[in-house]
């Protein structure tokens, strides 16, 4: 296999073999057949020679740039970031050199061409006509609708774009919604996570480049290849769960022995993500390995899931209405008692004594 991408990689000290291995890894991560690895490598290498590289527009809305941080700080050497050598990232506020009118121009030029891949991170505020978040004087809602109309597909990057995320948390002051709440007529792939795993982001992009389509999705629009299994089912601490060995606090014997973090509020059993297999920072570690339970960040409404440190099996706050309920019950009981007594008194006063004369009538 030859091509400018291979040469670029070679200059950066990455051999063709490493590149092929990377593509094969991506393919296997996504549960694609072995031949897909080669197809991916060829498609990406070919993308480098194509006259026009696939255009990508990245729009940031109500977000914290954590998703961008995640993808830029992926494995070192930044093999994943090389994928951006084969796409034309026409607009990305954090990464682009252009600013102001230049940036807007780049965006408009890319949109004019159409058929681009639109990446969105951050939620879209609907409150106050979208005034909570504006770029170049235009609301996120307006920008998204405009950009979505010419997009081939949309990637909702991170939990905010996918499900509303932190801005959507109760009481949701800005009226934040997800991309799929706004755009209904385009293929959307959700890559939730706070932030999402870099390889998941690049894997979806590679799939799109290779096959021109989005990977198979679950009911929440997430690629099944990465979100097909729970953290719990793939967790290396799972044997301790099965043995009933739990850490009770973050510094007890159980925690030091690496026992299961279920009782410390781990959301692994209900969280679908690839952290347990792919890990973070070049496969160095991941939250549970570093001793903290899963927060469930790739699930809708994880901010409002009853507390990060409460076990999934314990109630969130069941006695919230208890005193009001007891008071209301007591009032109802007393009121009904009085009504009953009234009924009794009425019956007693309506009672007529039967006399002998009555019987002889």
């Amino acid at each position, binding site marked *: 296999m030859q091509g400018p991408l291979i040469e670029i990689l070679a200059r950066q000290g990455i051999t063709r073999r490493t590149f092929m291995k990377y593509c094969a890894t991506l393919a296997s991560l996504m549960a694609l057949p072995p031949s897909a690895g080669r197809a991916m490598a060829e498609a990406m290498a070919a993308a480098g020679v194509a006259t026009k590289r696939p255009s990508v527009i990245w729009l940031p809305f109500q977000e914290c740039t954590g998703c961008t941080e995640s993808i830029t700080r992926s494995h070192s050497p930044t093999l994943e970031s090389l994928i951006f050598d084969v796409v034309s990232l026409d607009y990305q506020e954090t990464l682009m050199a252009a600013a102001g009118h230049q940036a807007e121009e780049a965006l408009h030029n890319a949109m004019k061409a159409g058929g681009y891949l639109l990446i969105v991170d951050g939620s879209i505020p609907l409150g106050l006509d979208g005034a909570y978040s504006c770029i170049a004087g235009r609301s996120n809602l307006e920008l998204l609708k405009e950009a979505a109309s010419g997009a081939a597909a949309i990637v909702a990057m991170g939990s905010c774009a996918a499900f509303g995320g932190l801005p959507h948390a109760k009481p949701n002051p800005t009226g934040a919604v997800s991309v799929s709440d706004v755009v209904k007529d385009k293929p959307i792939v959700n890559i939730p996570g706070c932030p999402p795993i870099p390889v998941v982001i690049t894997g979806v992009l590679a799939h799109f480049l290779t096959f021109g389509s989005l990977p198979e999705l679950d009911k929440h629009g997430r690629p099944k290849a990465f979100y097909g299994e729970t953290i719990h089912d793939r967790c290396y601490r799972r044997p301790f769960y099965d043995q009933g060995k739990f850490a009770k606090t973050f510094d007890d014997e159980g925690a030091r022995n690496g026992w299961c973090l279920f009782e410390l509020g781990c959301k692994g*059993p209900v969280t679908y993500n690839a952290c347990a297999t792919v890990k973070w920072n070049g496969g160095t570690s991941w939250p549970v390995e570093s001793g903290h339970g899963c927060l469930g960040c790739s*699930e809708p409404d994880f901010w409002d899931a*009853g507390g990060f440190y409460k076990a*999934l099996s314990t109630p969130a706050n*069941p006695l919230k209405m208890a005193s009001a*309920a007891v008071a209301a*019950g007591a009032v109802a*009981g007393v009121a*009904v008692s009085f009504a009953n007594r009234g009924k009794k008194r009425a019956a007693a006063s309506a009672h007529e004594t039967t006399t002998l004369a009555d019987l002889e009538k």
Partner: protein
Amino acid sequence: MNELQFLTWVRGTGLNVAVGVFLLGVFWRLIEIYGLGRKKDLSAPRHVAGASGWHTIFRRSIPAQGMLKKSPVGYIGGFAFHIGLAIVVLLFAPHIKLIQSLTGLSWPGLPSQFIDLVAVVTLAAMVVVLADRINKPVKRFLSTFEDWFTWAVTFLPLLTGWLSVRHLLFPYSTMLALHILSVEILLIVLPFTKLFHAFTVFGSRWYNGAVNGHKGVAV
């Protein structure tokens, strides 16, 4: 609604509402029942050995002479599932932990394997009691919708709880959510159906015993 949202709802809003309705209902019914009042009994009390409220509470817990032979399923099945329920609800370690987290009270639990066995026996006893109710013409004739319904809302928490501990049918967290949901239904239904006997059984036995004792009748 995904798994996490479902579980969040049942252990959040759902449970709050269920516990609220339960407490409201229990206080309402207890105050109403005890507020009914009774007529003053002007007759002189008669004293007969064994005729008192406390005696009756105890005596009615054991079958009357000859009855065990006449209705073995009713007595044995009934005892098995009531005692089994009490053991599973009060002596299963996770339940004790729950009570501890709410009230600060705790006591030693029984081994999970033993609880598992008790749960299976209790489930079987409940099925047998139900079959008996269906098979015996008189029992079937006397049964109303409430009887079938209260049987179901008692059976479901036990079944879903056992399935979630055994990791059967659905993933644990989904089964757990269904278990909590079934308990919530039970909590809401309990104060307003015959299941309220959980609160009134000993009070009403004592009352009947005391009234009968006053008349000198040991029943």
